[in-house]
C-alpha cells in the first residue's frame, strides 16, 4: 500500500504543479462550487420565502378540526420544541341596537399568530399598522365594514351570542383571514377566554377549531409524522405552507421547483464536465500504465495508484469547490440583499452534504469507466502505440454514467417525475445527436475532399475524429440545452407570474349590488374616472342532486361527518349566468352555451361546470344537475366543462348557467375596480351614496403577492446567472480538453508548413460547425423537456419557442467558435518544437 500511495502522491503532486490536473480538478471544483452555491443560496432564499408565506397561514402548519383540538396533541407539539396557538372560528350574528350583521368570529389565544402579524387602523378604512397585542377579555376588534353595517364607532358596545363586547380597535387584517370574495363576512376578533360565555359553540353551530404549529423543520416533521396517523380525515385537515394553493403558494412552489431544476441541471452540467475531463485524464495515463505494467507493476498496484490519485484529486477539488462555492454565494447574497430577503443563517448542512456527495459521486462514478479502460491497457503498448485499452463494452459506461446521473437527480430532488423527464429528454438528445453526428460524418466525407482550404480541413477533421466529435457534440448540446431550459423556463415563469397581476389589476371588489343600483353605480364610477369591471349576477343556491340522486347538502363536512351518499359541494354555491364565456376560462369538454338553443334536447337548461369541481364531485358531460334557489328548483344539464385560472384576481364560478334559466330570479351583482393607491382616500366618499353595497379590499393582498413575485423573480434571475456561469465554464473546460487532443495535429500541420491563419480558420470553422449543430439539437431537446416540465411539473401551459431554434444554433456557433479560436490561438503561440516536445 505504501508503494502505491507514494507513487500516487508523487504523480498527483507533480501533475498538480505542472497544471496537468487542471481540467479534471476544474470540473470537480465547478460541480461542487455550483451545487453548493446554488443550493445554499436557494436554501437561504427558501427559508425567507417560507417564513413569508408562513404568514398567510399564521404558522408553519395548521390543524383544522371540527371538534376541539386534543390538548395532549398540543402538549406533544410543545414537547417536540414547537410553539403552538389556538383559534376558534365560527359565523355568528352581531347586534348593535336595531342593527345586526353576520360576522366571521375569530377567538384566539395569547400565542396567536405564530407567524405574520395582526394589523389595525385608527379609523375605518384608515392607514393600517401592525400591532403586537390582542383584544383583552370583553373587547372586540372588528373590521371596517362592520362599522358601516352596524353604524357604530370605536368604544360602542356590540352583542355576540350571550356576551357584550366593547369595540376597541378597527381590525384591518389577520394573517390567515383567507382569501375569498364570497362568504366574506367582516372579521371580528375576540379573546379565547370569552368563547365559553358566548354560547355560540354549542351543538348545531358550525365551529372550526384551528391549532397552529411553528418551529424547526425537523421538529415539525417528526411531530406531523406522529400526528397524522391519529387524524380522522372526516374531521381533521393538516395544512402546511407547502399545501398553500393560493396564487402566492403556487408561485413559491413553482419557484422552489425552479431552484430544484436549476440545481439538478447544475449537477448534470458538472457530471458532463467531469465525464469529459475523466476521459481525457485516463487517455493521458495510457502510457504511464503500460510503462508501469512493463516494469512489473501488478494490476492491483495500478488500481491502487489510480484510485488513490482520483481520491486525492477529488478531495482537493471538493475542498477548493466548497471555498469558491461559499464565497460565490456570499457575494451573490450581498449583491441582492437589498432586493431579496434571504435567511441570515449562513450555514446549512444540507447544501454542504449535497455538494460534497455530488462532487464525490460524480468524480468516482464518472471516472469509473475511463479508469477501467485505463486498468485494461496492455503492457504491449510500450512497443505498439496503436494498442490502447482492451475494454470495448461501452454499455458499461452508459450504465455507469446514466445510473449516476439519474440517481443523483433522484436523490437530490426526491422527485421521480422531474428526474425522469430530464433524464429521458437527455437520452432522446443523445440519440438524436448520434444520428446528427452520423449525418455530419457523411457530409464531411463529401465536403472534406478536394483542395485543402480551411473548410476542407475542418470537415476532414470532423470526419476523422467522428467518435471524439460525437462525444464533444453531445457534451456541447447537453450544456446548451440545460442552459436553454433554465433560461426559457425562467422567462416563461416570470412572465406568467407578472401576467397574473398586471398593472391595473382590480384591487377592490363590490358585492351585494342590487339591480336597481347597478346602473347608478356604473354611472357614478364613470363620472369619477374609475374604470369598473363587468357586473356578474350572483345568486346563492344549493346544489342538491346529480341525475336526480340527492347529494350531501351539508354545509360543512363537520356537520354530518359520517353521512353516506354522493358528495356535495359542502356549502351554498354562488350561481351565475351568462351567455359570454368569462376571460381566462377555457372550455375543455363540450361546447359553451352561447348559441340560441335555450334548452338541451332533454328539455333542460345548459350549465357549464368548472373542471376541478366536476372531477371532485364526479360530474360528467350530460349529467342532470339540480339546484335549489330560494324555494325554486332549477334543473340543468352539463353541456360544457371549463378550466378556470384560479390564480387571477377575478371572480370565478363553479357553475355558470344559461341566462334563460335564471330570468325569474332577482340577483345581486358583483364587480371589481382598480383604484390607484394615491386615490385611496377617496374611497369612503366614493361609496357613500351606496350604503347597501359591501366593499372588499384586496389591495393589500395584491401588493403582498406582487412583492413576493418580484422577489422570487429577482432571485430566479440570479440563479439563472449562476447556472449560466457554471455552463460557460463547462464549455470552456470542454474546448480546452479538446484542444489538448488537437495539439498533436496542429504540431504536424505546422511542421508541414501550414500557415497559422489556415490552421486557426480551420479550427474555428470546425467549432462553428459543431457549435451550430449542438445549438440546434439543444433547441429541439429544450422544447421537448420544457413541454414536459411545464405541463406536468410546473402546472403551466406548454409553449413552443421557435425563436430559440434560430438563436441557439447562432449563439452556439459563435460562443463555441470563439472559445475554439481562443484555445487555438494559445496553441499557435507555442512554437512548433515546443509543441512537438509536449507530444512526446
Amino acid at each position, binding site marked *: 500500500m505504501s508503494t502505491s500511495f507514494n507513487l500516487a502522491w508523487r504523480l498527483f503532486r507533480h501533475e498538480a504543479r505542472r497544471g496537468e490536473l487542471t481540467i479534471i480538478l476544474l470540473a470537480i471544483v465547478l460541480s461542487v462550487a455550483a451545487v453548493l452555491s446554488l443550493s445554499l443560496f436557494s436554501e437561504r432564499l427558501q427559508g425567507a420565502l417560507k417564513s413569508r408565506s408562513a404568514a398567510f397561514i399564521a404558522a408553519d402548519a395548521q390543524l383544522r378540526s371540527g371538534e376541539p383540538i386534543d390538548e395532549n396533541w398540543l402538549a406533544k407539539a410543545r414537547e417536540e420544541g414547537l410553539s403552538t396557538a389556538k383559534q376558534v372560528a365560527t359565523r355568528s350574528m352581531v347586534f348593535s341596537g336595531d342593527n345586526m350583521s353576520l360576522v366571521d368570529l375569530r377567538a384566539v389565544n395569547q400565542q396567536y399568530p405564530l407567524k405574520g402579524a395582526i394589523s389595525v387602523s385608527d379609523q375605518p378604512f384608515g392607514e393600517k399598522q401592525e400591532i403586537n397585542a390582542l383584544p383583552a377579555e370583553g373587547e372586540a376588534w372588528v373590521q371596517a365594514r362592520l362599522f358601516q353595517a352596524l353604524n357604530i364607532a370605536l368604544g360602542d358596545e356590540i352583542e355576540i351570542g350571550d356576551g357584550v363586547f366593547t369595540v376597541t380597535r378597527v381590525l384591518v387584517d389577520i394573517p390567515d383571514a383567507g382569501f375569498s370574495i364570497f362568504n366574506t363576512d367582516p372579521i371580528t376578533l375576540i379573546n379565547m377566554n370569552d368563547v365559553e360565555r358566548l354560547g355560540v359553540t354549542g351543538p348545531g353551530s358550525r365551529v372550526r377549531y384551528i391549532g397552529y404549529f411553528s418551529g424547526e423543520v425537523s421538529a415539525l416533521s417528526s411531530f406531523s409524522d406522529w400526528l397524522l396517523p391519529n387524524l380522522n380525515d372526516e374531521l381533521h385537515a393538516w395544512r402546511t405552507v407547502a399545501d398553500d394553493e393560493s396564487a402566492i403558494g403556487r408561485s413559491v412552489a413553482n419557484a422552489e421547483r425552479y431552484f430544484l431544476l436549476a440545481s439538478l441541471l447544475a449537477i448534470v452540467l458538472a457530471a458532463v464536465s467531469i465525464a469529459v475531463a475523466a476521459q481525457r485524464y485516463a487517455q493521458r495515463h495510457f502510457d504511464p500504465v503500460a510503462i508501469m505494467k512493463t*516494469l512489473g507493476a501488478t494490476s492491483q498496484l495500478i488500481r491502487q495508484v489510480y484510485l488513490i490519485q482520483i481520491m486525492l484529486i477529488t478531495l482537493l477539488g471538493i475542498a477548493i469547490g466548497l471555498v469558491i462555492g461559499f464565497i460565490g454565494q456570499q457575494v451573490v447574497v450581498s449583491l441582492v440583499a437589498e432586493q431579496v430577503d434571504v435567511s441570515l443563517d449562513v450555514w446549512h448542512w444540507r447544501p454542504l452534504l449535497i455538494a460534497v456527495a455530488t462532487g464525490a459521486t460524480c468524480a468516482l462514478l464518472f471516472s469509473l469507466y475511463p479508469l477501467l479502460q485505463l486498468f485494461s491497457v496492455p503492457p504491449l503498448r510500450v512497443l505498439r502505440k496503436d494498442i490502447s485499452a482492451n475494454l470495448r463494452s461501452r454499455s458499461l459506461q452508459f450504465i455507469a454514467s446514466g445510473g449516476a446521473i439519474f440517481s443523483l437527480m433522484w436523490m437530490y430532488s426526491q422527485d421521480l417525475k422531474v428526474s425522469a423527464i430530464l433524464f429521458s429528454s437527455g437520452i432522446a438528445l443523445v440519440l438524436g445527436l448520434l444520428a446528427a453526428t452520423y449525418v455530419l460524418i457523411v457530409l464531411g466525407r463529401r465536403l472534406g475532399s478536394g483542395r485543402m482550404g480551411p473548410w476542407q480541413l475542418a470537415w476532414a477533421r470532423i470526419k476523422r475524429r467522428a467518435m471524439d466529435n460525437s462525444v464533444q457534440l453531445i457534451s456541447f448540446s447537453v450544456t446548451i440545452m440545460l442552459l436553454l431550459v433554465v433560461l426559457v423556463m425562467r422567462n416563461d415563469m416570470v412572465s406568467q407570474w407578472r401576467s397574473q397581476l398586471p398593472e391595473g389589476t382590480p384591487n377592490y371588489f363590490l358585492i351585494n349590488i342590487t339591480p336597481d343600483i347597478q346602473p347608478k353605480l356604473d354611472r357614478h364610477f364613470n363620472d369619477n374616472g374609475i374604470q369598473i369591471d363587468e357586473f356578474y349576477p350572483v345568486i346563492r343556491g344549493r346544489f342538491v342532486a346529480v341525475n336526480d340522486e340527492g347529494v350531501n347538502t351539508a354545509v360543512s363536512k363537520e356537520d354530518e361527518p359520517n353521512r353516506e351518499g354522493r358528495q356535495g359541494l359542502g356549502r351554498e354555491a354562488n350561481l351565475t349566468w351568462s351567455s359570454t364565456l368569462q376571460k381566462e376560462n377555457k372550455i375543455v369538454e363540450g361546447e359553451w352555451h352561447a348559441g340560441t338553443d335555450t334548452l338541451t334536447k332533454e328539455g333542460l337548461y345548459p350549465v357549464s361546470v368548472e373542471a376541478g369541481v366536476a372531477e371532485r364531485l364526479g360530474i360528467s358531460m350530460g349529467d342532470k344537475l339540480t339546484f335549489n334557489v330560494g324555494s325554486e328548483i332549477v334543473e340543468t344539464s352539463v353541456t360544457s366543462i371549463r378550466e378556470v385560472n384560479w390564480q387571477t384576481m377575478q371572480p370565478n364560478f363553479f357553475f355558470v348557467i344559461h341566462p334563460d334559466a335564471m330570468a325569474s330570479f332577482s340577483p345581486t351583482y358583483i364587480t371589481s375596480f382598480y383604484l390607484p393607491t394615491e386615490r385611496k382616500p377617496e374611497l369612503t366618499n366614493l361609496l357613500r351614496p351606496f350604503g347597501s353595497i359591501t366593499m372588499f379590499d384586496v389591495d393589500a393582498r395584491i401588493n403582498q403577492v406582487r412583492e413576493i413575485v418580484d422577489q422570487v423573480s429577482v432571485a430566479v434571475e440570479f440563479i439563472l446567472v449562476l447556472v449560466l456561469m457554471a455552463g460557460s465554464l463547462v464549455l470552456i473546460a470542454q474546448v480546452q480538453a479538446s484542444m489538448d487532443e488537437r495539439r498533436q495535429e496542429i504540431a504536424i500541420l505546422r511542421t508541414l508548413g501550414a500557415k497559422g491563419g489556415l490552421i486557426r480558420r480551420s479550427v474555428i470553422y470546425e467549432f462553428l460547425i459543431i457549435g451550430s449543430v449542438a445549438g440546434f439539437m439543444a433547441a429541439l431537446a429544450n422544447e421537448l423537456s420544457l413541454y414536459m416540465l411545464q405541463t406536468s411539473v410546473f402546472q403551466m401551459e406548454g409553449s413552443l419557442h421557435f425563436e430559440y431554434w434560430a438563436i441557439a444554433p447562432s449563439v452556439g456557433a459563435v460562443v463555441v467558435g470563439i472559445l475554439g479560436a481562443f484555445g487555438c490561438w494559445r496553441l499557435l503561440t507555442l512554437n512548433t518544437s515546443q509543441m512537438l*516536445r509536449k507530444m512526446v
Partner: protein
Amino acid sequence: MIKANSVTKIVNTSEGSLQILRPISFEVKSGESVAIIGASGSGKSTLLGLLAGLDEVTEGEIYLDDEGLHNMDEEQRAVLRGNKVGFIFQSFMLVQSLTALENVMLPAEIAGLDNPKKLATDILEQVGLKHRANHFPNQLSGGEQQRVAIARAFITSPKILFADEPTGNLDAKNSEKIESLLFQLNKDKGTTLVLVTHDNALAQHCTRQLTMNAGELTETTSRVDEQHIEAV
C-alpha cells in the same frame, strides 16, 4: 537464460488471420548479447514482445530463466518482469509527470527494493545525469532521456535486458554514447541482452546476430565465430 520452442504468433484481422511469426526456436545463454535484426515489419518487435512476456504466444513455449512464460497469466508475467527483466525503448517511454530520479526509482519501488532513492541516485551518477535528477523528461534532450531509461533499466540489476531500437531516435553522436553506456553496464552487471535493431553497426556490438525475415528467424553469425574465423 532464454529458450523459445516453436513459437508462433497469429493475429486476427478484419481480412482473416495473419501469421506474423512462423515457428521459431532458439536459445540465448546467460550473459550473451543477441541482436535481432531485420527490416521494418519483419516481426522483430513482435518477437521481442513475446520473449519479454508483454504479449502471449499463439503456439509454442518460451522459458525465461527456466520459468515458462507460456503457462503464466499477465499478473505472473508482470511479477517475473519486475524481478528479472529490464527494458529500453526507442521512444524512451519515461513517465512524463515524474522526474528523472523518480522514473529511475520506479522499477525499484515496484519490486519492493530497499532505499530506491539511493539506488537511483547512484545509477544516475553512473550514467552522468546526477545533476539532472530533478528534471522532467521534457526538460531533457533525447540522449539524456535515453540515459535515464538505461539507468531505469539497470536499477533492479535484471538478469535479462530487452532493448527495442535503443538508438533509433537519436543522432549519431548520442547513439554512440548510448551504445557504449549500454554495453558497458551490460558487461559490468553481467546481464543477458536481447536487442532489436535495424542498425547493423549496433548489432555488430552483440555476440550474436539473428535475422528476422517475414516472420522467420535465422542465425546470421556470432562475433565469437567471426573472431574465430579471423584467427584461423
